[in-house]
């Protein structure tokens, strides 16, 4: 029956869903951010379960550590509190949106299950060092170009973000 692996998975899965749900439903953005951190940490755990130790670490550092902190900082900057209107109005459109998304979820789920039940899986157990080393080798050989290209992207974002934040604005700002 259920192995410990399964049980851990389910716990994590439930928690992940709960956190994700929290992100979307919390009226306060701060809570959303909080749930987001939780979700990300949870997913990091799932990564560990999948043997992607390095990625799990990066997940924690980059996402939980940097991205969400960025979000929180911005939120604090704005000093926003609970919003009166957290969700877009329109019952019908809301239902439609939910319905369509649910449909998508269902379609994806059935397809995925169908695939998973027929696919031949090779669940090779690889240790943390091995996996990281392999990753590093790949990154600096096969995916070297992508890696280099990312650097351009980051520079673009850096320059762009600075430029945006320093923007004084046009005629309106002068007046």
């Amino acid at each position, binding site marked *: 029956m259920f192995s410990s692996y399964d049980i851990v998975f389910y716990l994590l899965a439930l928690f992940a869903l709960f956190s994700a749900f929290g992100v979307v439903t919390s009226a306060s953005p701060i809570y959303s951010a909080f749930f987001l951190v939780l979700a990300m940490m949870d997913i990091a755990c799932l990564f560990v379960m999948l043997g992607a130790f390095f990625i799990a670490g990066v997940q924690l550092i980059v996402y939980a550590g940097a991205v969400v902190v960025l979000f929180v900082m911005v939120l604090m900057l704005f000093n926003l509190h609970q919003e009166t209107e957290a969700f877009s109005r329109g019952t019908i*459109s809301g239902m439609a949106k939910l319905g*369509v998304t649910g449909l*998508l979820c269902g379609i994806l789920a059935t397809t995925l299950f169908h695939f998973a039940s027929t696919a031949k899986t090779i669940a090779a157990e690889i240790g943390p060092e091995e996996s990281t080393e392999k990753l590093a080798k790949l990154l600096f050989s096969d995916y070297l170009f992508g890696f280099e290209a990312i650097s351009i992207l980051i520079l673009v974002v850096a320059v762009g973000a600075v430029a945006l934040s320093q923007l004084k604005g046009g005629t309106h700002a002068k007046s």
Partner: protein
Amino acid sequence: MDLNVLVCTLVAAPLLGFLINGFRFRSENGIIAGVIGTASVITSFVCSVLVWLSLAQRPEAARFLRLHLFKWVEAGDFVANIGFIIDPLSVIMLLVITGVGSLIHLFSIGYMSHDHRPAKYFAYLNLFIFNMLLLVLGDNLLLMFVGWEGVGLCSYLLIGFWFTDQEKAAAGMKAFITNRIGDAGFLLGIFMLFIASGSVDFFELWQWAPSVTESAWLSPVTLACIFLFIGAIGKSAQIPLYVWLPDAMAGPTPVSALIHAATMVTAGVYMIVRLNPVFIVAPNAMLIVAWVGALTAFFAATIALTQNDIKKVLAYSTVSQLGYMFLGAGVGAFGAAMFHLVTHAFFKALMFLGAGSVIHAMAGEQDIRKMGGLKKKMPITHLTFFLGWLAIIGVPPFAGFFSKDEILWLTLQSPLGSKMLWLIGGATAGLTAFYMTRLMLLTFWGKSRVPKEVHPHESPMVMTFPLMILGLLSVIGGWIGVPHVFAELPGIGGLFHHIPNILEHWLDKSLSPIPGIAEASAALEFSAMASTLLVVGASVIAAVLCYSPKNNLSERISLKFSGLHRLLLNKYWVDEFYFSRIINPLIECSRGLWLYIDVNFIDRMTFVAGDIARGAGSFMRGLQNGNVQYYAFYIVAGVVGVIMMCSQW
């Protein structure tokens, strides 16, 4: 002179006259214009006479000449030339047209002396003569059609000569349109004949016609003849297309004399005679021709009984006389039809010109109820008109007697004719005598009812001279066709032994004999003749009784048969019928078509298509509501839709 040159001169002279007068259309000098116009037609006439003489010198079989000018048009195996046919038949027509034409031109100089656009008038008249010559001389149906339409056009122009009067302009238009209906039939006839025979050339048609054997209803030849006859119906004002002719009296009276009595209206008869070998092989078509002719003759005569406009009476009389000609042609008496055509040209032109003289004298008044007693004021006019009267009612030995009698006799005798037709013809002769006598009585004889302010006077010489010539012709015109039977006449018969039937002889080779005509006894012919004369005499007496100033019998009769009288007076309401049942519905229908099909349907469809596109655009606009979440929703919905669409993997 060379015949070709003669013919060309003959045709070109009126054209030249037209061009000269046409280019100086602003001229108000009636004399110069008149002289140019008249001279050109007289030139034509002289040439015609020369042509006739030169033709007469030839042996009988060699009297069929063709003058080829140039190839006109060619398409596939259809060829039509500009070429003239000179044969006994066309020469007769030439003489009549140019002869009567010259006289009428001459008369016009006087008649139009007060008009301020005389050059234009003479230009039109010359153009008409030219077109009439084309019609007569054309050596193929297509060229004949050119003249056919051309004379219609001139008729249109001349009827509407005083176009500032909308009614006169309308009369011209009516004439043209009605003629056009006939022309459409004529065209169909040409097509049919061409498709049946492969040619439109008269010579070839004559050669081809005898080979035709079938004569069933709707056989090509019959159909062709019927179509052609529709053309004749239009041009020669037969039932049901006669309505334009009375209205055509709106034109100047000499025009009525030339076009609407002597020449153009007889083109239909000429055409049938020209194509007689073809018609003769289509007996069913002939039957229709004869019956339409007879009925028109009778019908028009009844209308003429009650008309009060001097020209209208003459107009209906013309329709009626044309009916005679068709009756003759229809029973196969082509020669008789031609004969009547010629004599009718003389006496009807005479009567119209006489009427013109009267109208001229009466300062434009045309109502015979306001005339009477003009005998004294206008002696020459009266005399010539009197001769015309005698001729038209068929008193021997005046022109009309011989021709009418020949038609009636052949109607009776020809296997294509019948007793019924003869009876109708005879009755018509009686009616003719009645209304013509009535016309004489009311116009010239009796007490004067002329309004005081009008002072009738005799017309000038330039007008009376043509009258006199035509008067003479009305008397002697018939002598070219004295029937053979007169030789059998007891007593004076020997006198006629030496008078040949000139016309019959002249046309001998041109005309097909009536198939299966039997020799008849002279007695029968005489008794038929006598009965007609009897009817005529009785009618004259009746008319005199009715319209003698002493008793107002005519009024009593009209009161007694008031319904009939009104019917006749209003010309059987045919015009009204055409207007209310055909023309107005057509116009209404057109307006409906335009409004409902063009504007409200086709254009609406276009707009609807536009509106659909625009509506779809607005719908798209509505989707594009600016809310980015909706946009994201479209993306998700698109993804779901697409996956669902492809979900049969």
